[in-house]
C-alpha cells in the first residue's frame, strides 16, 4: 500500500512541477457531476482497503480506493451503516469519490449530511505532501476542520487518501407508508410532522403521492404509523423505492431532460416550473426535470433562499453550480491556492478558475 501511495505522490509532484492538471478518479461513477475537466486521470483505486473498523467505537476508516459497497458490507455485518445513505450511482463507486462528491441520500434531513459524519481525513495536497486532519474520535476541535471542508470539494483541493466516518447502528425497524397529498399540502404537512417527535427517516413526493419512511424502535415505528395513516408497503417494496430514489434508478430520473437539484428551505411553497418534480428531505431537496433555462431556475431558487445545481444533462455553459458572491469567490480562490498552489487538481470542475 505504501508503494501505491508513493506512486500517487510522485504523480502529483511531477504534475505540479509541470503544471499538468490531474483528475483524481475512483470508479468514475460521478464523472457526470460538475463541469467538464480537461486533465489526465489519476486512478485512486490502487490505494484501497479498510484500515480499521471498531463497531463499539462507531468508527470506520478506509482508503479512498475502497469500493463503497465493500465498506457498507463490512458495516452491515455488524448491523451498522453510513447513516447519510450516500448514492453510489454505480457498482464501482469508491469511498474517495463519495466524499469528494459530498452527496447524501434520503436520510439526510433526519440523520445529517455526509460531512456531518466525517471525523478525519488524510490528504495528498498539491505539493505531494500527505497530511492528516481530524481523527478517529467523535469530538475533535484541534486545528481548523479541514476534513469537513474536503467533503464536497470535488477533488479540487487534493487527493482524499483516507477517511474516518462515524457510523451508526441500523434502525431496529423500518416501515414505508404511502399517502395521497397534493404538492403544497405535502410540503406543509411534512414540515409539521418533522417538528414533532416522529421517527421519519425519509420522504419522497411525486405526482400527488407521498412516500414516507419510518425508522427506529419497533414500538415507535408502530405508534407513528398508526398516527400518520396511509398505506404500508411491504419491506421489499419499501427498500426498492428508497434505493430507486437514492441511486436515481427510479423511473422519474429516466430520459434526456436536464435534471436540476434545488436545495431550498424546507417550507418553500411549490415553485411551479414547467416539467416534473420529485421532492425529498421534507421539502428541502427538489429534483426538477425541466427545459427551463439556467437563469430562470437559479433565480427562483435564489429568491426562495436556496440554490440550484444542474445535476445531469443540459447546457453546462452557465456552469453546473450556482455562482458565488464575490467575497466567497475570493475566499474559494485563496483556499484553493493554499491547498493546490499549482492549480493541478480538477481545474474548473467546481467553478471556472478554481
Amino acid at each position, binding site marked *: 500500500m505504501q508503494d501505491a501511495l508513493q506512486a500517487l505522490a510522485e504523480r502529483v509532484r511531477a504534475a505540479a512541477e509541470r503544471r499538468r492538471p490531474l483528475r483524481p478518479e475512483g470508479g468514475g461513477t460521478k464523472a457526470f457531476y460538475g463541469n467538464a475537466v480537461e486533465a489526465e486521470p489519476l486512478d485512486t483505486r490502487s490505494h484501497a482497503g479498510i484500515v480499521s473498523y471498531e463497531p463499539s467505537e462507531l468508527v470506520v476508516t478506509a482508503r479512498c480506493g475502497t469500493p463503497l459497497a465493500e465498506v457498507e458490507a463490512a458495516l452491515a455485518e455488524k448491523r451498522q451503516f453510513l447513516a447519510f445513505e450516500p448514492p453510489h450511482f454505480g457498482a464501482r463507486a469508491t469511498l474517495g469519490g463519495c466524499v469528494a462528491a459530498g452527496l447524501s441520500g434520503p436520510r439526510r434531513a433526519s440523520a445529517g449530511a455526509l460531512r456531518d459524519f466525517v471525523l478525519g481525513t488524510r490528504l495528498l495536497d498539491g505539493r505531494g505532501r500527505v497530511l492528516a486532519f481530524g481523527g478517529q474520535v*467523535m*469530538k475533535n476541535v484541534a486545528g481548523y476542520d479541514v476534513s469537513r471542508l474536503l467533503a464536497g470539494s470535488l477533488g479540487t483541493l487534493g487527493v482524499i487518501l483516507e477517511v474516518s466516518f462515524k457510523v451508526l447502528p441500523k434502525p431496529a425497524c423500518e416501515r414505508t407508508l404511502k399517502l395521497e397529498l397534493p404538492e403544497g399540502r405535502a410540503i406543509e404537512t411534512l414540515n409539521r410532522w418533522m417538528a414533532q417527535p416522529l421517527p421519519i427517516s425519509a420522504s419522497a413526493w411525486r405526482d400527488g403521492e407521498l412516500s414516507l419512511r419510518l425508522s427506529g424502535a419497533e414500538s415507535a415505528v408502530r*405508534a407513528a404509523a398508526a398516527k400518520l395513516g396511509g398505506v404500508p408497503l411491504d419491506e421489499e417494496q419499501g427498500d426498492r423505492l428508497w434505493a430507486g430514489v437514492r441511486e436515481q434508478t427510479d423511473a422519474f430520473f429516466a430520459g434526456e431532460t436536464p435534471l436540476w437539484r434545488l436545495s431550498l428551505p424546507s417550507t418553500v411553497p411549490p415553485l411551479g416550473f414547467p416539467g416534473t418534480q420529485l421532492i425529498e428531505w421534507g421539502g428541502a431537496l427538489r429534483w426538477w426535470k425541466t427545459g427551463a433555462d439556467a437563469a430562470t431556475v437559479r433565480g427562483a431558487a435564489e429568491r426562495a433562499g436556496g440554490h440550484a445545481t444542474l445535476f445531469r444533462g443540459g447546457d453546462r455553459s452557465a456552469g453546473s453550480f450556482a455562482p458565488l458572491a464575490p467575497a466567497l469567490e475570493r475566499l474559494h480562490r485563496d483556499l484553493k491556492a493554499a491547498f493546490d498552489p499549482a492549480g493541478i487538481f480538477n481545474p474548473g470542475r467546481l467553478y471556472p478558475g478554481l
Partner: protein
Amino acid sequence: MGNAFPDVEIQRSVAKKLREFLPARAVLWQEEDTRPYECDGLTAYRGLPMVVALPETGEQVRRVLAACHAMEVPVVPRGAGTGLSGGALPRGDGVLLSMAKFMRILRVDPLARVAVVQPGVRNAAVSDAAAPFGLYYAPDPSSQIACTLGGNVAENSGGVHCLKYGLTVHNVLALKGFTIEGEAVSFGAEALDAPGYDLLALAIGSEGMLAVTTEITLRLLPKPPLARVIMASFDDVERAGNAVADVIAAGIVPAGLEMMDRPATRAAEEFVRAGYDLEAAAILLCESDGTSEEVEDEIARMKAILQRSGATRLTVSRDEAERLRFWSGRKAAFPAMGRISPDYYCMDGTIPRRRLGEVLGFIGEMERKYGLRCPNVFHAGDGNLHPLILFDANVAGELERTERFAAEVLEKCVAVGGTITGEHGVGVEKINQMCVQFGAGELELFHAVKRAFDARGLLNPGKAVPTLARCAEYRRMHVHGGKLPHPELPRF
C-alpha cells in the same frame, strides 16, 4: 503574549478612531473598565486589552474591523468569556471586540424549525424561546446558562448529548458576519447545503480566527416527550468503560452517556446532593429519550446490558425531578471542584473509548508523579475526558506542575489515537500540544487557510495554531517521555 501594557499613544489613537462611529460608553480603555476583560474562563492566563469595543450593530462591527485592519491593530472577539482555553485572552496591543450587546433572538420559525439569533444570545435562551413550540436547541455545554452562541460557534461546543445529537457544527445552518477587512460574508443557508466549499464547517470551531459572526441560524429539534436516565454503579473504572462499549455494540445510541469516578462523585455529592452511590469506583449516567414506547424499550435493554457488564447497582429515574437531580451532580462537577480545592485545571482530551483503562491508569501515575489529585468526569459516549487537576496557584510551583501534568496527559491522548481537545478549543492553553498532534505540513496548511481569510494575521492572532518556530522550540525542549531538561526550572 498579551501581557505587555498598552502603548499609550497607540491606545489613544485607536480609541479616538473607534469613537468616530461608536458612542463613548462603547469604547473602554481605562484600566478600571478594561480589567473585567483580562481573561476568559481560563483564569490562569490574563492580560489587559488595549481597548475594548462594544458595538451594537452589524455596521458598527464592520467599521471596528475595517478600522483595525487599516491601522494594523489585532482584534480579539469575545462572547460571554466562559471559554476554557484562553481563546478570548486579550492582547495589550489589540482591541477586544465584545459581542455582548448582540443579545436578540431575531426569529423563531416553528414550521421550518430554525432560530435566527445574534451571537451574544445565551445557549439556554434559545431552547427557552423554542419551548412553546415543542422545539429545542440540542447542544448543551455545561456552561449553557452563561455561554453564548457566538462562543459556541467559535469553539464548536458540544455537551452531554452530542453522541446522539451532534456538536455545534451539526446544529448550525448558517452564519453571517465579517472578515477582518470588514467584508460581509455569509456561510451556509437555511437550505440544507450551499454551493461551493463548506465554509460553514470551516468557520465553526475556528476559534474566532477566520471571521466575526453577527448572525447565526440554528436548527431546532422536536423535544423528545420523555427522557429517563439510569445511574449504574461499578466497582472498577475499567469495567464501567467496557460497559459503555457493550451498550454501543448492542446497537444503542444513548441520548447521554457520562462517567464520573469516585473522587468526582464525592465532590459533586457534597455540593449538590445528587444521590450518587459513593461506594462505587465509578458511576455511569445512561440516558434514553424519545416517545414513551421507545424509552421504556431502550431503558429495559440498557439495564440488561449494564447488569451483564457487571454493574453493582442500577437506579432508573422515576420522574423528571429525579432525572434532573441525577444530572445536577454531573453538570456541577466543575464548580464542585472549586469547593474542595483553591484551583482546578480542566483538561479536554478525547480518546478511542477502548483505551480508557490505559489512559486512566496513566492519569493515576501522573497524580503520583506530580503529587496532585485528579478526579475524572468523562463524556463516555464520545470518548471525551475531562480530568480535573486540583491545585493551589498560591503554592509556588503548583501551577507549573499542573501544566506539565496536563501536557503529559494530552500527549498521552494523542499517543493512543485521540486528540488534545474535544470541545474546549486550543486557544493559548494547548498551543504547544498542537505541535505534538500535527506535523509541520498540517500546521503550514492551517496558516495558509488563515491567510486566505486574514492575510495580515490580525484576527485573534497567536491562538489555536502555533508557528513552526514555536513548535521547533517546543520539540527541542521536549525530550522523550515527557521529561523536560532541567525540570526544576520554572517555564512559562
